[in-house]
């Protein structure tokens, strides 16, 4: 490290230290406002009465607004913090609804510049000021934590860039590597373009995933659960078992950003940027490992990064699970390619399976349906290359990969399977749909201009569900060159990739006989669970970009350098222009939302409600206190997420039931005071499938209810934990052995 670098590092550490100290400031109380002190302003058009509080000033920072209220049935309050005069977007926050029986609510607002005249407004529906309890505003240390994090990342980015520049100037980083880094960085920035704004545009599923992040953060904060199984604040505090069916591992990152104090949308945008960057790196490294040619790897990576279907998943659909899974699909391709193409006696042969393990694990943690598709195509490849698969060492490595994926991810898939087998969940009904009619028309395959559409059906205003004009034309060019015998005999991998691309594209259309396949027992589940065939565009995108890379490789190996250069330059330019067109189209057509306050979205954006108990609907739920049978008295009720503490007294000679405001998922435990007959969770559920606790006759004391999960959950977590530990031990042992050898 040079002298200048040491000085710079010292200054950076000092600044960070100063900022770190500010992160531990206690909350300061800014304002207390009684409901009775608010002034009635007017009756609004929708019949609500608007109340306004006295004005107050706010310094830059993050504020928590707490509200206590007496809202009853048929009543509602909409609370908002406003200001008269301020700098541009100085107050960033949205209003929040307070629902019937919701005695306590809390939300955040973000102030970026000093505001002199902020004030609280409450719109009351169905009542007057007696609904309002008290509003308290606290200034939190979240702003300091956000500042610290931003400064930390800025310093890290600066240091890395300076280090990179120094190494490049010293000739330690080759020109090719510099070009690769620059190109991938430009590709990432281009693909993130629609989010470089101070507003947000929602995709179809974005709200659902934003709520997943927010509720994950709340569950980590309130209940200290890990792994999270039931996310607590969903559905008016009843909890939602989304984490069992939909891996949350990668959402820990934006949840962590939320814990630090970033607004939900900022956390999400940072997450998207990180995923784009990770996609670029993973795809390039995977391709480079296989083709061993920087130009071909860069070509394939950029075509994949800017693929229309990928960008459509990010911005039009907001399909977090699917685009996360697409990030890791190249790893699986890399693993399969190396295991099948390399010689079994090569030095690092046994290490190749880790690409498969890493890729499949990450896909499983991201999106179940993508796992299904990946497994299907892995099976196809194994069938196509069966001779190679049944080489002894290859077969062993593949089996080991399967075993490792199963063991390391046991904590996710085993509980999921157990819950699915109960048949109690709505998700079983979703799998019954016929999907053929929602495949794409052939016309969509020649819809080369990637417009940001408004529907995935039909052709008019249709989304860009395609592999992209560059990938399509490369396939056509290959066909023409082969037909004219301009290129030599096709390599097997190129042929396989071509076949897989065409197969997955055809499967995504409405011409593939999905409905006929759904009649076949055993195949039905897989044929209908996809929900829509257009998901097959994800593997099609992967295969077509890999095809592009291997095509360049073949041209170079046949010494067709001019043609390789021409194909590289032209199709890359085409991919970049098409990507630019698409992000521009997305940006210009999307609706801008100034969304900052996570609580504004409410708690019921569950989409189709796949993980509710079958027979219930989200609209059945509402905030409510525990409901006790006659003879049962309760008091001191406290609810922290999915943890409930309550004192009950059963004065009757029979057991009585208490229904608590939690969805009755399997796995809740009720613990009473020691020495008394234990209360227990009933097998039947209460109204709208609420959790029912049986209080034994004569019981008097505190009951603690929390979600522990069935025994199988614990076993699966243990298996995964042991597998991970053994893995670390083995890696450490191998590393030590390698060091000793050196």
């Amino acid at each position, binding site marked *: 490290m040079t002298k200048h670098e040491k000085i710079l590092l010292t200054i950076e550490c000092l600044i960070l230290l100063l900022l770190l100290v500010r992160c531990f400031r206690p909350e300061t109380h800014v304002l207390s406002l009684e409901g009775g002190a608010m002034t009635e302003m007017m009756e609004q058009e929708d019949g609500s009465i608007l109340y306004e509080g006295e004005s107050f000033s706010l310094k830059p920072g993050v504020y928590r607004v707490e509200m206590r209220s007496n809202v009853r049935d048929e009543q509602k309050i909409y609370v908002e913090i406003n200001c008269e005069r301020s700098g541009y977007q100085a107050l960033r926050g949205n209003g929040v609804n307070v629902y019937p029986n919701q005695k306590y609510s809390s939300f955040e607002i973000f102030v970026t510049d000093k505001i002199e005249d902020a004030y609280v407004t409450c719109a009351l529906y169905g009542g007057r000021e007696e609904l309002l309890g008290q509003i308290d505003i606290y200034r939190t240390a979240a702003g300091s934590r956000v500042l610290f994090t931003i400064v930390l990342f800025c310093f890290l980015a600066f240091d890395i860039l300076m280090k990179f520049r120094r190494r490049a100037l010293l000739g330690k980083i080759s020109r090719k590597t510099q070009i690769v880094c620059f190109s991938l960085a430009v590709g990432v920035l281009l693909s993130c373009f629609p989010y470089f704004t101070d507003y947000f545009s929602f995709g179809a599923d974005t709200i659902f995933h934003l709520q997943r992040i927010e509720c994950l953060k709340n569950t980590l904060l309130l209940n200290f659960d890990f792994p999270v199984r039931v996310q607590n604040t969903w559905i008016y505090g009843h909890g939602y078992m989304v984490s069992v069916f939909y891996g949350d591992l990668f959402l820990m990152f934006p949840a962590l950003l939320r814990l630090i104090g970033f607004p939900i949308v900022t956390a999400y945008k940072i997450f998207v940027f990180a995923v784009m960057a990770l996609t670029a790196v993973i795809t390039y490294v995977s391709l480079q490992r296989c083709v061993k040619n920087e130009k071909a790897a860069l070509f394939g990576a950029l075509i994949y990064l800017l693929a229309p279907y990928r960008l459509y998943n990010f911005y039009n659909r907001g399909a977090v699970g699917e685009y996360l899974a697409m990030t890791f699909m190249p790893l699986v391709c890399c693993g399969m390619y190396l295991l099948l193409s390399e010689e079994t006696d090569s030095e690092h042969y046994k290490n190749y399976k880790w690409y498969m393990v890493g890729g499949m694990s990450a896909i499983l943690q991201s999106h179940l349906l993508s796992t299904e598709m990946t497994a299907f195509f892995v099976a196809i490849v194994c069938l196509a290359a069966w001779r190679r698969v049944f080489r002894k060492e290859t077969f062993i490595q593949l089996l080991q990969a399967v075993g490792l994926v199963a063991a390391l991810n046991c904590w996710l898939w085993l509980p999921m399977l157990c819950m699915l087998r109960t048949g109690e969940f709505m998700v079983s009904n979703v799998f019954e749909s016929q999907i053929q009619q929602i495949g794409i*028309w*052939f*016309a969509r395959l*020649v819809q080369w201009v990637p417009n940001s559409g408004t529907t995935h059906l*039909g*052709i008019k205003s249709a989304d860009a569900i395609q592999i992209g004009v560059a990938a399509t034309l490369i396939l056509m060019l290959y066909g023409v060159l082969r037909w004219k015998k301009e290129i030599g005999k096709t390599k097997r991998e190129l042929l396989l990739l071509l076949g897989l691309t065409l197969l997955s594209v055809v499967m995504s259309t409405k011409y593939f006989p999905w409905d006929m396949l759904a009649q076949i027992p055993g195949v039905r589940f897989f044929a209908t669970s996809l929900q829509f065939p257009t998901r097959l565009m994800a593997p099609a995108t992967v295969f077509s970009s890999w095809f592009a890379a291997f095509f360049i490789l073949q041209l170079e190996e046949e010494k067709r350098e001019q043609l390789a250069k021409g194909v590289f330059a032209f199709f890359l330019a085409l991919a970049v222009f098409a990507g630019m067109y698409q992000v521009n189209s997305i940006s210009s057509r999307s609706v801008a939302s100034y969304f900052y306050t996570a609580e504004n979205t409410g708690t019921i954006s569950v989409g189709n409600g796949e993980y509710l108990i079958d027979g219930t609907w989200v609209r059945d739920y509402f905030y409510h206190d525990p409901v006790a049978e006659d003879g049962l008295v309760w008091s001191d009720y406290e609810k922290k997420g999915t943890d409930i503490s309550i004192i009950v007294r059963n004065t009757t000679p029979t057991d009585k039931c208490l229904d608590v405001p939690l969805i009755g998922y399997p796995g809740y435990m009720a613990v009473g005071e020691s020495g008394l007959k234990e209360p227990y969770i009933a097998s039947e559920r209460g109204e709208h499938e609420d959790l029912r606790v049986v209080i034994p006759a004569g019981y008097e004391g505190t009951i603690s209810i929390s979600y522990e999960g069935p025994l199988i959950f614990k076993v699966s977590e243990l298996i995964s934990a042991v597998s991970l530990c053994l893995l670390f031990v083995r890696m450490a042992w191998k590393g030590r052995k390698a060091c000793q050898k050196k």
Partner: protein
Amino acid sequence: MSEEVIKKQADDERKWICAMGLLALLVILFPLACPYLMEGGKIQEWLVRVQQSRLFLDAEVLSDAGMPFSALQSGLFCLPFSLIYKITGNPVLAYRIFMLLLQVGTFCSALLMFRKLFAKEDNRRGVFWGVVFYITNPCRIAVCYDAADLALAVVMMLVPIVIYAVVDLKNEMDWKAILAGALALAGIGYADGALFWVVLAGLLLVCLITGNLRGLLTVPPALLLFTGGIVRTIHYLFGNDFLKLGIDTQPIAANGYYPGELFLFFHAPGKLPGMGAGLFMALLAGAWLLLVENAHEEKENRIFWGIVVVGAAMSLKYFPWNYVEHIGEWASRLVTFFQTPVVFWALAQICLCVPAAQSMVQMGRKKEKIQGICLPLLIYIVCVALTVWQCNTLTYERLPLL
């Protein structure tokens, strides 16, 4: 270079030119991938003619169907597709076959015309450029798909055959050319009777100015073949049939172009179509070659330029159509049947492609790679890319009709 090498190079060039030409044709067919008829333009008129399956529709039928301005058009080119519709009951299939034949027919007619024009050396390149410029012309694509003025589209398909016949007859007496020209001219008449007179007038003027009296031999057989149409035209322009349509004579100047719009690079939905970026770039290259590099200009281009200038002038908002109407009531009625002066610019496009192709041939002869290879390649890419964009935007924006 040995003869074999030259022959191989020529063969390779021929293959590439064929492939690129076919690619240009392929992208024109993209809207046919739609499994439905797209609404908009005059597609309803085509449907009515297919459903009625008659050569000429009565004034009352035209008025009821909301197509009085199409009185001078016939259903001749719709008859085979009426049959397909009646057999299959599938109007989308009938439309797809019609449009496929129209586009392929336009490709072939343009090929015929440019092969005659570029009969000397560099035949292939001139033919290639002429055909590509014409079939990817935004005006022509807008006529076929956006406006769905299928009568005008048929006219634009047949005009190259007329030009081919006239050019062929300039050099020698050729009965096949006379027949082709006559059939094409008559076909234009049956497609759109109003435009028949425009094309006829243009043909007469061109033949007289260039002294190509043999070219006039196509006229009498054409008139003979188009007798039915002539009678109908007389009834509508001079008789009372016009009144039965329930429309008044109306000026068309307001629907014309502003001068700048003639040079628009592409056709945006709802706007008027321009000449396209590819054609514009080619003409610009031609102007460069002529003015800066003193390249030789073909004398024949002047007549094509003349037609283009006249067509452009007639398509402008400022053209004095009111003076034309003073000639007589029949002239007013004829102008009414034109509906819009945009048709003249559309008809002039084929002539615009000739000097554009010429300039690309000259550019292709340059030894420098940028001028000789890169620029022509760029222009080709621009033509195809804008066509893809236009066709994709059409299918993206249009609602299904059937």
